[in-house]
Each structure stands twice: as structure tokens, then as C-alpha cells.
């Protein structure tokens, strides 16, 4: 198995983003990490997602019951950290 196969489910819809926030450190995602996200996936309750808020991307936990409408851009699939 290659790292690509391990980290990526769907090659066509996979994108890489650099994390620029400390907000997710309790979730184990640190500033400077790379995350691989799937733009085509449908989020399930509790998934880490990339949401569009005020014209920029934000990392969040997907909450089905939340009354606040949020625009889901992608579902986080993997985290890559280099030391």
C-alpha cells in the first residue's frame, strides 16, 4: 500500500490544506499540519469538516442537529504532520 492509497479515498475529490489555526488542537490537529479533505463526501454526524464562514474556511465538528446553517465545503479525511 502506498501512502496515497492509505490517506486518500477518492483521488478526484481529494485536496490538501494547511492548518492555520490553534482552534483544533484539542482534536489533535495543530497549526502547520496538512489535512487531506474530500470535497465530494457527504458528512456524517461528528465528522471533522471544512465549513465556509464569512468567505473563509474553518475547521468544525459536523453537528446534524445544529440549528445554525453552515456551508460544508469538504470532509477531513487525514492529517499529515512532519517533524
Amino acid at each position, binding site marked *: 500500500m502506498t501512502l496515497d492509497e492509505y490517506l486518500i479515498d477518492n483521488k478526484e475529490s481529494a485536496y490538501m490544506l494547511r492548518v492555520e489555526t490553534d482552534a483544533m488542537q484539542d482534536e489533535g490537529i495543530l497549526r502547520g499540519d496538512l489535512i487531506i479533505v474530500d*470535497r465530494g463526501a457527504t458528512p456524517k454526524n461528528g465528522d471533522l469538516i471544512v465549513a465556509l464562514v464569512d468567505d473563509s474556511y474553518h475547521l468544525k465538528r459536523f453537528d446534524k442537529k445544529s440549528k445554525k446553517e453552515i456551508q460544508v465545503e469538504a470532509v477531513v479525511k487525514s492529517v499529515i504532520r512532519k517533524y
Partner: protein
Amino acid sequence: MRKTILHVDGDSFFASCEVSLDVSLRGKPVVTGHERGIATAMSKEAKTLGVVRGMPIFKIKKDFPQVVVVNSNYFAYGLFAERMYNIVRRYTDRVEEYSIDECFADLTGLKEPFWAIGEALKADLNAELGMTFSIGIAPSKVLAKVASKTRKPDGLTVIEPNEVENFLKDLPINKVWGIGPQTSLKLQNLGIKTALEFINKPKDWIETNLARPYVDTWNELRGLSVHDVNTESDDQKSIQHTRMFGMKTNNKEIILSELSMHVECACARARMMKLAPKRIYYFLKTAEFRYHRGEINLDRPSNNPSEIMKAIEVSFKEVFRPNIQYRSSGVTLAGLASGTQNDLFGEVVKSEKSQKVFKVVDKIDKRFGTGTIMLGSSLNANKRRGNTPSRHFKILYMGEVV
């Protein structure tokens, strides 16, 4: 069997790629081509403002200061194109990668309703690539192009065989794929303004007034598929010859000469393999990496470069655009049929003669090096290698210039 062809066309593709990769550009008027000094693509917001392709960047900045102008990133556009082709391949493996922002797929024989395939594909492309595409589904390639242009952006249009006339009645003849400015002018002088008027002419009228490729276009517009979807597996059975121009050019003679050289080299290889093509594809690649293509269906297989060049010269008038800079060109011989040297050209005496000529050409090339003897039409292209052909070329394949 009636065919069903799908055409996918990326909306404002280059600009859409930029927006897909940078969320801060979303909803803004975006123009690509900063490094070239002219607009190469515009987002729909920029189009609404009145920015058109080819507009100088300094003028855009002056007249529309709100426009975001970015450098082109052809590497990224190529990656998006690959993903587009692969997503279409989920529905059928018969996909032709027509250009960086377009592809064809052959849906013939698929069980699901075609509009359902179109909607599912469109949803996949939109979600996974973060941009919109316009899709057309019709009984031929030319009609599929008509369909995808009908609703743009983000449209899906299916032309059923019995609806063809509805789609063609208001379509100006010059908007038909493959009918360029010269031919549309000629047709207008003959009283034909719309595609419907064109297909309502009898076949012998078309044959009398226009060259062979337009009979194909006439058939395609009537819903009879002539142009096959050229998949990669076909490519393996084809012979291709391409190269970059020494510098960007829009000189018609130089470009035709390059094509002539490609045809000669590819034909030499075909003759060596005792094969002759039924279809010829050629392309001119613009400085913006767009492809302008021509496709020729020969009456019978031929590996005679003069015959092929005659056909290319006719269709070239529609493919070549004088005010565009081109960077490379290439020729593909496809639909290769084998046959003995004798019966390949058996039908026409003239061809038999030239067959003998090219047999001699092959012998001379083998002895003294490729390009020792060539068609006059290839002269310009061969000058680039020095005026007299060197005898020290290493021959990799017959017909391959080192």
C-alpha cells in the same frame, strides 16, 4: 446503431480553477493571463462586467479596477482536467480527452436514462472539482457540442433524435463546430444562415458546393454520427507526430509546413508498418494551451502524404485563426488498416503512381537519412534543421526525425 455522445465543457475553466483553489476569490470577477498581458479566461462575474478574452490586462485594470487578475497556472489546470476526465470515466471508459477543458464520452448502449447520467455526472464534477460544467448529450459529436452550448453555465441539455430541428432552427451556421468564418460566409452567400437551413439542403447540394469534411458535419448535424469518440485505446493503434514550433507563431505558411512535415513523418512510419489510416486528426496548440483541432475522414485508407495534406489544407482554413499565437502542432493517423502495398491504392491510378514515388522516397530516406527528400510543403519546417539534410542523423524509426 444510433449513437449517444456526451460533451462536457468547463465553464470559464481557467478562472474556475483559480476560484476552486482560492476561496477568497469566490464571487469576485477573476481574470487569468496576467503573465501574458491579456485575459485568457474570465469568471462569470468578470464576463458580466464586460471583460472579454484577449483584452489587454492594463485596460482591464484601468476600466475595471475591482477585477482580480492572476497569473495562469497551467499545471493546476492540467490536474483539474485529469480529474475531470477520470470522473467522466466512472460512467464509461469510452472518453476522449478533447482539450484541457472539454471531453467527449460515448454513452451508446448504456442502460440508464441519458439525462440521469448527465445529472449524476454534473453533480459529481461540481462537488468534487468545486466548479461548474455544461453538459450536452446528443446523437453525434457535433450535436453534443450544440447541446452543451445551449445552456451555459451549469447546464444540462439532451437533444433527442426527434428534437434536432428545434435546436438548429435558431442556431447561426457559424456557431456550428467545424464551420469556420470562411465557410459560413460562403454558406451565407448561398442563402444559408441557420444550421437548420444547412441540414435541409440535399446531400448532393452539399457535395457540390462544399468540401468533404462538411458532408461529415452535415451528417452529424442530422443526427448521424460520423466522428467517433477517440479514446486512448484507439490512440495505441495510431501513429502520432508532434513538436513545438521554434517560437510562438501565427504564420499560416510556417504552421502548414509543420503539419506537412508531421504528415510526411507519420506516413513514412505507416508505410513502414504497411498500414494506412482512415482518419486524420491534427491539432494546433495555442500559447494558452488551448487546442484547435481538425478531423478528417478519408474516403479510403491512405498513407500518401500529398493526399492527406490536400484534405488538411481544406479543413485548416476553419481551424486556424490568424490573430492567435500557436506554440506547437501535431498529427495523428488513426483507424489504421493493414493491406498489401498493392491493393491499398488499387482503386486510383494516380495513387498508384504516387505510391511508387513514396516507395522510392522511403528507400532514399533509408539510405541517406530522413528528410533527404520531402514534399515542397514541408520545406519551411525542414529548414529549421538546416538547409541541407545532414546524413548523420541517427535513425530511430523510419519517419522519426532525431
